[in-house]
């Protein structure tokens, strides 16, 4: 069944359903082919995977052009999947402005990362497996954004989580990677419980999984305030886990144990944005539930602060970027909390480019120095010019410097916050100072000053497949630098799509018009302040980490309690590990379960055996082996039955 909803201008997307399915199926086919047949041919696996994702990318572009031509009209193609009693589950794809944008973000970044991986993963014994997992991830992510109902969305949501787990633990022989994979999986599962509860709630109360019907239900207000608030909070719980929002953000920094291209694609540009996508997809629910929206905004603000402040004390380049990602995801949630539906997606869109760029840049640095520790880098500016310049542009974009992509999206978030919630604006503005500070701290430590030698290659380590010479770092090969350059173009220009609010009108057509608030007009005042804040952050970083006007150790000494707090990550890991994992689970719950197992489960089983043993001890005396005694028993039995029958039915 196909339903078309015209945009305001009256057009509908004419793209064929087969094209939409092909976008999902292409990487899926690559995954299947690689796992079944190409394990022994890693080179072929790599090329096949890239070809498949290139196909998806081209089809996504065609889709985007088509939906753009229809001014953001909506097309829903849905089919009955199965029916069990009253439960009807559909399998369908939905295409609208939001989906089209997400499709292009996911497939374009995936394609560039896959190409980059050709260089980064070269010589890894798990090369073929890597491409299989990546294809699975891309399938799941594309399915997630195309799904037309919550049930199907949840399936792809979990598949995304699975492939993230597989890729974080890609080097599973490293205990730290295996532990990080487990941590990511378990922590996100806590949030997913909320999402599952929300799905069950909407099914029992609303009787539907379809996205457009849930929109209508939310806006019609027939569900009741509590239900819709709980539904919104349940969805948000899922988003908190997946998008690494406070207090479940702890898994994302550890996820950096995975290969760097994985971090770029999954843990920066796409998967972690799935939570933001989910909240945007169900934006009318937030509109109908102001309490839930308020929670989203403030959790987002807390995440912004936590991420930005922790990024300030990291010495590992990738971890700086990881905390920066957490902080930026917080900005997106904050935007959703202040009615900024289109703005949140806009920031997701620009962030995908510059954050993927920064991650791939850090991977390029790692390829030259064999380390992510910024204290062992320095001076790479002249040695790796392409990496340096692209990284610098990505950083400027992230810091929100005019006229790069990050400026436009961050500025609009600040504007929405200023208009709708001054408290959130203050938090966001202060954090944007810290953003510029920690990013330029990383730039100065990595690319300026003297080169400090990197990490020597350990030739004893069989798992290491490092080829270069860390003592003499050099620029990476073209398969790695070309994706950097393309992403740089995105990090510069992606923001210009918002000119004249074109982007906003396009994605806003995806949700019912009554759910939207009028976006505030561009304000020079906000734009100039946010630029000044960014420049101030950059200047502070320059003063501390480049010129050494103020010694960073001095600052640490003065602000000792704060520095200690940050270095222990607000003690959240300790809290989770000691209080929940050890005390509550190992000591409390596990012991309870153990007692139950010993006494209730084992007791029942042993008791059954004991009763059988005791009764057989008595009954064995009847087993004489005398056939005549058995015969007498039968006769007596028949006699007794006859008497009973006679009593029951007197003649």
């Amino acid at each position, binding site marked *: 069944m196909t339903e078309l909803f015209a945009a305001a201008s009256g057009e509908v997307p004419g793209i064929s359903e087969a094209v939409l399915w092909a976008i999902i199926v292409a990487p899926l086919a690559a995954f299947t082919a690689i796992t079944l047949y190409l394990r022994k041919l890693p080179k072929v696996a790599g090329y096949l995977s890239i070809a498949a994702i290139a196909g998806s990318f081209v089809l996504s572009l065609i889709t985007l052009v088509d939906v753009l031509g229809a001014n953001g009209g909506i097309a829903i193609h849905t089919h009955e999947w199965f029916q069990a009693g009253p439960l009807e589950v559909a399998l369908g794809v939905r295409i609208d402005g939001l989906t089209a944008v997400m499709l292009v973000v996911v497939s374009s970044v995936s394609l560039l990362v896959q190409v980059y991986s050709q260089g980064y993963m070269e010589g890894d014994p798990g090369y073929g497996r890597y491409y299989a997992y990546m294809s699975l991830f891309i399938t799941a992510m594309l399915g997630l954004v195309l799904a037309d109902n919550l049930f199907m969305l949840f399936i792809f949501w979990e598949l995304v989580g699975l492939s993230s787990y597989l890729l974080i633990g890609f080097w599973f022989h490293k205990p730290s990677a295996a532990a990080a994979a487990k941590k990511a999986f378990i922590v996100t599962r806590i949030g997913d419980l909320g999402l599952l509860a929300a799905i069950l709630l909407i099914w029992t109360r609303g009787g539907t999984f379809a996205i457009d019907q849930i929109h209508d239900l939310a806006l019609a207000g027939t569900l009741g305030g509590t239900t819709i608030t709980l539904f919104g909070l349940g969805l948000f719980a899922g988003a908190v886990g997946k998008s690494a929002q406070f207090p479940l953000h702890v898994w994302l920094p550890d996820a950096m144990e995975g290969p760097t291209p994985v971090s770029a694609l999954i843990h920066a540009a796409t998967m972690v944005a799935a939570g933001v996508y989910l909240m945007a997809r169900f934006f009318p629910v937030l509109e109908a539930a102001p309490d839930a929206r308020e929670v989203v905004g403030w959790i987002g603000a807390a995440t912004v602060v936590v991420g930005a402040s922790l990024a300030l004390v990291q010495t590992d380049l990738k971890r700086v970027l990881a905390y920066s990602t957490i902080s930026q995801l917080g900005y997106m949630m904050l935007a959703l909390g202040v009615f900024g539906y289109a703005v949140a997606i806009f920031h997701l869109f620009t962030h995908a480019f510059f954050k993927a760029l920064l991650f791939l840049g850090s991977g390029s640095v790692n390829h030259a120095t064999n380390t992510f520790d910024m204290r062992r880098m320095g001076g790479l500016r002249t040695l790796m010019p392409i990496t340096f310049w692209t990284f610098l542009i990505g950083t400027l974009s992230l810091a929100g410097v005019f006229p790069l992509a990050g400026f436009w999206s961050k500025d609009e978030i600040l504007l929405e916050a200023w208009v709708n919630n001054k408290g959130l604006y203050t938090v966001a503005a202060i954090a944007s100072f810290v953003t510029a500070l920690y990013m330029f701290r990383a730039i100065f430590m990595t690319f300026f000053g003297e080169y400090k030698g990197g990490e020597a290659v350990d030739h004893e380590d069989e798992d290491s497949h490092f080829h270069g010479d860390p003592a003499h770092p050099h620029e990476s090969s073209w398969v790695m630098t070309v994706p950097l350059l393309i992403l740089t173009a995105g990090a510069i220009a992606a923001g210009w799509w918002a000119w004249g609010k074109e982007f906003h009108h396009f994605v806003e057509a995806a949700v019912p018009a009554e759910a939207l608030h009028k976006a505030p007009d561009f304000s020079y005042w906000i734009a100039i302040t946010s630029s000044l804040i960014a420049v101030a952050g950059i200047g502070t970083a320059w003063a501390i980490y480049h010129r050494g006007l103020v010694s960073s150790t001095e600052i640490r000494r003065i602000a000792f309690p704060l520095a200690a707090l940050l270095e222990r990550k607000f003690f959240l890991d300790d809290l989770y590990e000691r209080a929940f994992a050890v005390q509550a689970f190992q000591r409390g719950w596990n012991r309870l379960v153990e007692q139950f197992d010993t006494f209730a489960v084992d007791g029942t089983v042993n008791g059954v055996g004991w009763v059988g043993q005791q009764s057989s001890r008595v009954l064995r005396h009847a*087993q*004489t*082996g*005398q*056939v*005549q005694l058995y*015969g*007498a028993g039968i*006769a007596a039995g028949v006699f007794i039955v006859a008497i009973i029958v006679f009593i029951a039915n007197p003649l």
Partner: protein
Amino acid sequence: MLTLEHFLTVGVLLFCLGLVIALSKRNAIGVLMGIELMLNSVNLTLIAFSRFSTGPAEIAGHAFVAFVITVAAAEAAVALALAVAVYRSRQTVEVDQLDLLRS
């Protein structure tokens, strides 16, 4: 005048005699004879019901009895052959000695 009850009473008495013999005789041949007695009491009962019934299938009882006699003959042949075989291997046909079923 002989009524159905007379026949049934004789049948029951015969059956009980057969049962007592089958359960109490130590010699396997005696047990077999008791079983034959029980079978014949059943035959008698069937014939009696057939004789006194007025239904459309009054020949059914006779047909049954014919079968029972045939099967009983076959059974007796098999049972006696078994008794001979048991005697050859165990030098006895006293049933209380044949308690191999007991462990």
